[in-house]
């Protein structure tokens, strides 16, 4: 995805290296190669590649990753503005 990049400096992703146990699960689940393992710890290689899907934070066994996860979908966000975040949907069976 080097040819398709989204807006920089947006991602809410944070890695708390002090908590990291270096299991590498974040490097497995991330579809954008945001993480890599450097010695006994993970590190963020490409923060701007993050789409905030939340796969890493969900699967991190020691909660060393925090991110405000969600779906990067305008229709979904508009629906969240109107109906409230809990009831948001893409409407019309978007996906």
């Amino acid at each position: 995805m080097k040819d398709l990049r989204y807006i920089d400096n947006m991602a809410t992703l944070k890695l708390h290296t002090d908590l990291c146990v270096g299991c590498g699960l974040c490097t497995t689940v991330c579809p954008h190669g945001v993480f890599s393992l450097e010695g006994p710890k993970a590190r963020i290689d490409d923060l701007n590649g993050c789409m905030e899907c939340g796969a890493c934070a969900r699967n991190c066994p020691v909660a060393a990753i925090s991110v405000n996860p969600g779906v990067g979908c305008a229709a979904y966000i508009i629906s969240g503005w109107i109906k409230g975040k809990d009831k948001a949907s893409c409407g019309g069976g978007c996906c």
Partner: protein
Amino acid sequence: MKDNLMAFGESAARDLGAPCCCGPASEGDDREMPGYSVCRFVDSFMETPEGAVPVVKTRLERVDHLGTLAARCNVGRSDYRVAPGLYAVGEPTETAPVLVTANYKMSFDAVRRTLSGMNAWLLVVDTKGINVWCAAGKGSFSAEGVAAMVTKTGLTQVVSHRKLILPQLCANGVTAREVKKRCGFRAEFGPLRASDLPGFIQSGLNADAGMRRITFTLKERLELMPVEVSLTGRHLLWLVPALFLLSGVGPGFFSFSQAVLKGVAAWSALFTGILAGAVITPALLPWLPGRAFAVKGALAGLLCGLPFGLFYWNEVGMGSLFALICWLTAVSSYLAMNFTGATPYTSPTGVEHEMKRAIPAQAVAVIVGLIIWLAAPFTG
């Protein structure tokens, strides 16, 4: 038992050794059950300690391709599902790998077609007929659902190992360690694309970096286009009569001939905007300048506005032409912004950031266009 399952007429006709009526009776099938029909993708059934399990075909047939085509065109897409449960591929034994997928038919087809010549179990989770990625993002593909299907199918009786291979793209909804806790099966994330499953299995469940990275190629973008046009275009249909009525407003209150002339121009501006935002923008995505989709869409709108402007140069006045280009650029920008939902790389924070800036700009373009459009007949 078999006779009981057969339709009465058919069994009676067979006793007489004669076709029931109008030609030969169709060959009875011992899998027939009243009220059920065997799915076309099922090749046979195999016996397991948990009863008969359908063995699926690994070649897609015309009916599958037609179904894919229809779903790609947003026909029946919200109800394109297979029954959740356990399926077999080839002749799996108790040591064969268990692959997990969603019960969206297109996901199911993608998995089975790639497993030709292999032996595996396919555990189809109830994701309400939604694909892996979207279902995980919206909570219907979860550790709870995976564990529930393991329990419901009695998988512990069917296989001797305790390992599931999950699609990588469900990781935003499925917590692997939670699956283990709930049903005792260790969940491992397989490759991102179904087509990499054979390579992943043959290499001893190892995925190289390429198998873990998402792509968004021209082909992948084009496949999404018809759904995009139908979903977003549908919301704009009410503009068709509205534009016609607005076009007729003039010094004599309402002029039908003016409505026809200007209304048709407004319609073609609308369709040019849809073309630019929902077709040109996705196709040219990597090459359009800017990171924000609204910007890419506006540029695509202006790009399409050029030939549009040349075509309508002498048809409507300069002011009206300006108004039309404002509208089509706004429509294109809005639709392009909506395409963020179909891409696999936009972050919600980024989308919200661009929306808060783009929607006011789009609204201004529409209002400025509207004022000029309505004022034009009065200023001559």
